[in-house]
């Protein structure tokens, strides 16, 4: 682990290519906020000229691990991965920044980042889905859609119910997927949550887990054992559309830009399915960000719980760019992006409809 970091620190050419798409550097503007800057700090650490002081640790926690820089780096450095290794080490050495304590404690104690009761988790579910039942498909709503952005989860359940798709939901028995803990370097604790969820999946004989949160998607595909299939809801809907089971009829005469979140995009390689869905809504004019797909710029969402001001500032840049493109709706495929972009719009007082794709769909659905 350490060897890998040393190798990267000395391989870094200081070329600065990584600055181009770095959401944090773009917002702050000073070298210390870029991957190149932090690679240099690492080098100084390995030369024995700098210690892992609070300031240094903090600076690594400022990286959104969006992996845009990995795309651009000519020497093949995956800086987001280096940050993950460092964070794990910081946690082991008791150096987790204190502003992350509440988040950590909430997830560990309550099973969600908001500190809400587990009892409230399934409240929004229609009666029929209140108790989990054995099923091949399970919709894993995730913390955001379970507590904060319940309209996403409701829309999904409504759509699937309407087309008589057979699935189950964990509701109260669902725990956080572990993503927030993993992101802060609390790998062992994240593992405990994962085991808890895995047990439930096994009990119910689940073969495919459907997620609506891109963070869950990344965690399930990258960190869970490969005992089951994972589908993002946009993948499922796209599949159902192709099978003719899902169709949209009402017109949405608007310019829509799809926002490629990092977890679903660069981390999981899903770019086309969300676009296919949007395109299939009659009237929609789908437009593209100047930098999209692999090159998409992060909204800062991963920083929203630790550095909200910075995260919102970053998001506001993405909203401004959408406005300049003439977009009327920003469509996301991740509640974290959606919420953060909304905050960004608020910050610069730009009128913009920002919706997660599942929320857009129910009213356009072709009935029966």
């Amino acid at each position: 682990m350490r060897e890998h970091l040393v190798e990267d620190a000395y391989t870094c050419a200081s070329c600065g290519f990584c600055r181009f798409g770095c959401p944090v550097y773009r917002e702050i503007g000073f070298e210390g906020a870029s991957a190149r800057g932090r690679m240099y700090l690492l080098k100084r650490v390995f030369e024995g000229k700098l210690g892992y002081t609070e300031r240094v640790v903090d600076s690594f926690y400022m990286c959104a691990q969006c992996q845009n820089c990995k795309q651009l780096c000519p020497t093949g450095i995956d800086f987001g991965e280096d940050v993950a290794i460092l964070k794990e080490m910081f946690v082991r050495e008791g150096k987790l920044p204190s502003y992350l304590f509440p988040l950590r404690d909430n997830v560990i104690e309550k099973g969600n980042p908001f500190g809400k009761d587990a009892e409230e988790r399934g409240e929004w579910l229609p009666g029929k889905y209140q108790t989990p039942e054995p099923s091949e498909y399970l919709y894993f709503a995730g913390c955001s859609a379970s507590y904060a952005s319940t309209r996403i989860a409701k829309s999904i359940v409504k759509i699937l119910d309407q087309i008589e798709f057979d699935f189950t939901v964990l509701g109260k028995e669902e725990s956080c997927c572990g993503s927030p803990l993993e992101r802060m370097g609390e790998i062992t604790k994240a593992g405990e949550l994962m085991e808890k969820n895995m047990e439930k999946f096994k009990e119910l004989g689940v073969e495919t887990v459907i997620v609506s949160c891109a963070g869950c998607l990344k965690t399930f595909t990258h960190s869970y054992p490969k005992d089951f299939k994972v589908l993002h809801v946009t993948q499922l809907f796209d599949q159902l559309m192709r099978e003719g089971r899902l169709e949209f009829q009402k017109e949405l005469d608007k310019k829509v830009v799809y926002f490629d979140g990092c977890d679903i995009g660069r981390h999981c390689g899903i770019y086309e399915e969300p676009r296919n869905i949007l395109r299939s809504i009659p009237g929609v004019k789908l437009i593209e960000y100047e930098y999209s797909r692999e090159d998409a710029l992060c909204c800062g969402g991963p920083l929203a719980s630790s550095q909200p001001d910075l995260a919102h500032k970053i998001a506001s840049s993405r909203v401004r760019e959408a406005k300049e493109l003439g977009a009327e709706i920003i469509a996301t495929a991740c509640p974290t992006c959606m919420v953060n972009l909304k905050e960004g719009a608020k910050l610069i007082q730009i009128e913009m409809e920002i919706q997660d794709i599942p929320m857009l769909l129910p009213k356009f659905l072709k009935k029966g």
Partner: protein
Amino acid sequence: MSLYEALCQIVGEDSISRDELDLLCYSHDLAPLPQELLKSFGMLNPEVVVRPRSTEEVSRVVEYANRENLPITPWGAATWSLGGVLPIEGGIVLDLSGLNEIYEFSPGNEYVRVGAGLVWKRLMDFLGTRGFEVGVHPTSAPSATVGGFIATGGGSGVGVTQYGSLGDQLLSLKVVLADGRIIDTDPWDSWFFVGSEGTLGIICEVVLKIYPKGEMKHLMYGFDALDHGVGFLQFLNGIRPHFYSFLDEEFIRFLNQKEKDLPGKELTVAVTLSGTPEEIAVYEKKIDEACQGEKYLEPLAVEEWEERFKIVLSLKSLGPTFFSQEIRIPIRFLGKVLVELKELLKNERYLIEGVGGDFGSIHILPLIMTDERKKSEFFRTFSLASSIAEIGYKYHGSIYGIGLYNTSHLPRIHGHSLNVMRDIKHAFDPKRILNPSKTTQMRIPAFLFNAVPRMMGSAPGLVSTFLKAVNLLPGRLIRAGLRLMGGKLR
């Protein structure tokens, strides 16, 4: 009022940093020079980094610095490797990356007006989606700034062989002079600032010629015999394609270690043509006829083009340190220079890249692989920089760029005109606040600078120990010592 407060009043708190980590990050550039060496140059640390958002802000910052007699070091993206951005005299680092707007795009009159801190890639992407392109760009385009490329000469890069150097593309510059005055230049006096390395003025705005996007074709050839390859390159120089470059055998060998599968020829030449399909066809035929080597399939050439920004650096992990000294020579001497370079470097792990330049020149970039952690090995490699330069001078060429590290070569490069250069510097910047100790001033007395590399070559261990000892001295004492020996410090 403190320096910080005064600057806050000009640019606002968000555009200024005195964070210890930022200050560290702004004290290095691409060159892998050990900190000991920089400290023995008497390097000071910057006090603040300022990142202005407009020409007016730059002007007010510079005016303030001039009044207070504070050094200012312009910073583009720090992708140049000659120490140009090192704030060696402390003071203010002026990070120009905030001047990144595209103010005007005029397809009818074929120009753009942009901030000097704009990154080339951004400009190229912007123009590309609108059917236009720039004439010339550096292969550091993903990070280098428009102003940085002007300040470092813009004489080597993609497009130079077709359109001339970057200086030929400049319609006007907005420059802040050392006393804070803002001037607009015409295409002719823009040349003052081309290659001025941040010592004559701060380039803030650039009006740049642009071209309707043409077709492009990429070709690649391999040569078993050095003189066939060299003859071919000389032929290319005559017909002025959009871009041409070569890689030596060692380069290919290293690339093949890194997941490539290229034929191991003595010289591999890549050519890019740009124009109408008819023009391209005519040129391709001529070039094919001139080639006494093997023509490769097109996908290989396209791949090489697409990787042009990354290809050299992709080998970085094999070093992990690269050391290089770029020389520019008249292309008629290419064969002799290559033979001498290969002889000089025969005991090193090295590779050579060459790129067609302006005025019938070719830029040769020998990259020597070393490891900066092994100090004595590194110093020995470092000492080769002078020998490489010597080969350049011998064949009527020169090193490309001065910055900080090549100041010891000043008398060699400019001869008697060095005093004229200094007079020009004095006229522009009498207090020597703009990027002091660079480009026209020899910070380290020449005799010392010439002796040290020689020592580095023969007794690198001794130099390493010596530097360690020097580093134990307080910075003030080092600076006083350098001054006593005739070094030009502020």
